């Protein structure tokens, strides 16, 4: 039969439950601005009722557990989007450096090529003038310097991206190690029936950091998260992490290995993916365009130059030198140093300018690549601009999408001060009410004791 004592005990349970709930609220408020913190809610359950004489009596409340409110599917979406956005962002950062080399249209390969042909054109008005011949050589040298510098700058960007690879791999390894440790902790706590919410918060944070660095896919298993790279090599399985290795090949290019397998080309996203994409795809493409232009231009111009006769009556020699293939722009140089050696003449006479027309024609004639030298350079500018614009658009889209996902995350897991204030009042009132029950039971008990005293007295 329900009695004062059991009522008293039930109220004490209420007080304890309300205190615990207040503590959860207090913790939520304390961590309102902690990155990655997911709000917790006290899970209160009714105690098993007692049945007496066919009547069922409620038996009070117990705090069953404190639960973190998270949406694991949303965490996965954020991780995926983070990988894409970081990849695009890393590409954009590198491409902005690349396009800086092609931003000033008043200098560089294009402008110097124009200047070179213009000074040749000027020479045609007075083909025997030594100062004008000297001007042609100076402009040729400027063009060579521009080819060299552009090539060097592109290679330098490539080199600095290459340095980032091993740093990124170190960061990835440090993160996967920490994640594996937390995975083990989560599994252990779950075995013991404990709520691993706080640990999971930390783990989710680390996984998002990992997503900023590289492609990962994440599977939830009973042992925690299994994390693999894009091509399926394991990074974290249960409590164990598998380190990636960075190693340079004979050219100094860093490759990424997972358990002995070269996975460099499969890494597409995350900042490492973006870096590799620019280092291995974009920059070789641009350098190749520049090299092709340099070597085909040198060949075409030399052919024109060699068909003429120089001021000393000798047949024209090669004007430029450029080793075909990779490095053509870097090795582009002017062979001729003597102004007399410019083969302007087409009939052998010193005063003839007939061969200059052949030489200036190279500017607008198609190279084997299918475009004139000027158009070839314009194509490089377009290519670089277009890639940068694409990376910019991808990065912007990724940012917008991440913002939206983070909003969703906040609406599920974020701490609302208003909500916590409401909870605070709710639990405060509940606590007060429970306390009032205790004092009422106390009065009743005294009454009962008084009854005994008066009967005795």
């Amino acid at each position, binding site marked *: 039969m329900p009695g004062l004592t059991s009522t008293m005990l039930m109220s004490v349970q209420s007080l304890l439950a309300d205190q615990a709930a207040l503590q959860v609220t207090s913790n939520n408020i304390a961590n309102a601005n902690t990155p990655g913190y997911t709000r917790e809610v006290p899970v209160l359950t009714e105690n098993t009722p007692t049945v007496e004489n066919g009547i069922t009596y409620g038996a009070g409340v117990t705090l069953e557990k404190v639960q973190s409110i998270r949406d694991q599917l949303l965490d996965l979406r954020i991780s995926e989007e983070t990988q894409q956005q970081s990849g695009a962002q890393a590409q954009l950062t590198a491409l902005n450096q690349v396009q800086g080399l092609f931003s000033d249209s008043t200098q560089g390969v294009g402008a110097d090529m*124009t200047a070179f042909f213009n000074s040749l054109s000027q020479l045609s008005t007075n083909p025997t*003038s030594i100062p004008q011949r000297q001007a042609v050589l100076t402009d040729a040298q400027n063009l060579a310097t521009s080819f060299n510098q552009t090539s060097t700058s592109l290679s330098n960007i490539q080199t600095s991206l290459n340095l980032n690879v091993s740093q990124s791999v170190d960061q990835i390894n440090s993160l996967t190690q920490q994640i594996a440790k937390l995975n083990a902790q989560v599994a252990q706590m779950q075995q013991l029936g404990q709520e691993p919410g706080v640990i999971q918060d930390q783990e989710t944070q680390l996984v998002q950091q990992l997503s900023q660095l590289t492609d990962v896919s994440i599977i939830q298993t009973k042992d925690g998260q299994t994390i693999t790279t894009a091509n399926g090599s394991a990074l974290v399985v249960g409590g164990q992490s598998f380190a990636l290795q960075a190693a340079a090949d004979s050219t100094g290019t860093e490759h990424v290995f997972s358990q002995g397998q070269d996975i460099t080309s499969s890494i597409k996203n995350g900042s490492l993916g973006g870096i590799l994409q620019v280092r291995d795809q974009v920059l070789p493409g641009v350098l190749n365009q520049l090299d092709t232009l340099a070597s085909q231009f040198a060949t075409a111009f030399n052919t024109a130059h060699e068909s003429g006769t120089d001021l000393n009556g000798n047949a024209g020699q090669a004007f430029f030198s450029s080793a075909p293939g990779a490095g053509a722009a870097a090795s582009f140089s002017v062979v001729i140093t003597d102004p007399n050696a410019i083969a302007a003449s087409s009939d052998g006479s010193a005063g003839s300018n007939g061969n200059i027309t052949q030489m200036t024609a190279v500017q607008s004639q198609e190279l084997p690549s299918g475009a004139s030298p000027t158009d070839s350079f314009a194509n490089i500018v*377009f290519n670089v601009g277009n890639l940068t614009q694409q990376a910019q658009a991808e990065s912007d889209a990724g940012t917008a999408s991440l913002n939206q996902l983070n909003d969703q995350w906040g609406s599920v897991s974020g701490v609302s001060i208003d909500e916590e204030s409401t909870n605070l009042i709710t639990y405060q009132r509940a606590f007060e009410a429970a306390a009032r029950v205790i004092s009422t039971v106390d009065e009743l008990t005294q009454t009962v004791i008084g009854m005994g005293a008066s009967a005795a007295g």
Partner: protein
Amino acid sequence: MRVNPNITPDILTAIWQTQEQENTALQQVSTGRRVNVPSDDPAAAAALVGNLNSSAQTDQYLQNTTSIEGQLQTADSTLSSVVEVLNQAISLGVQGANGTLSASDQQGIAQQVIGIQSQVLQLANTSYQGIYIFAGTATTTPPFVADSSQPSGVAYNGNSNTNTVEVGTGRSITVNMPGDQMFQGSGGDVMNSLQGLITALQSGDTTAIGNATTQLRTAYNFVTQQRVFYGNAVDQLNANQTFLQTEKVNLSSQENDLVGVDLSKAATDLSQAEITHQAALAAAAKVSQNTLLDYLK
């Protein structure tokens, strides 16, 4: 429905976005350019390469025009002097053919014609900025030298080639007429007829003097005709100059279309971006000032 209680990131994003818009607008107004890096408009940036090339080329064509104009004018005025002295020689020939002249008078006239011959020789060896302009393309040495072994009394050391200079895309102009064609052409040989006149005057044969004078007149007419070449070339250059200047204007307006900014639009964009940015800041200032706690006493 539960909403994201932490809107700080959203506010920051909005502020950054409006800030970026404002920066872009400000950059466009201050530089006057819509395309500052290739990614602003890759196609326009690529087209700008071609446009700037054409523009610089047009400048060069103008410069070429100026450079060769001097040479053409020098040639033209030289020929004007040649024509003038030839005219004198013809008068002297007519005078020498007059039978009433004494032998010594004829010798005197012959001396004058010899003087004219050497003047014509000098004129034919005129150079402009180190270029012998009537030497064909062998411009480094004087084309005509006195040579008594030749029937014309001179030897031509130049050649019969011409130079052309580009003065526009696909347009070039021939800048010289070789001396052999000008002074010793098939239509009349100045050198030969001067030498003929001198020989005739020295011989005192009035018929021969008359014939030689007629020959000289033919040569005179021929040179006058050939001289038109230079007059035409100068006219062509002038017309071309006007054309190039128009082209320059076209190219720079094309450049502006490609990468320039419509200033009135840019100014409007800027003030709009400023307003949007201020609105974002004002919104940020209003946000989150109050929570439920403010109303719980």
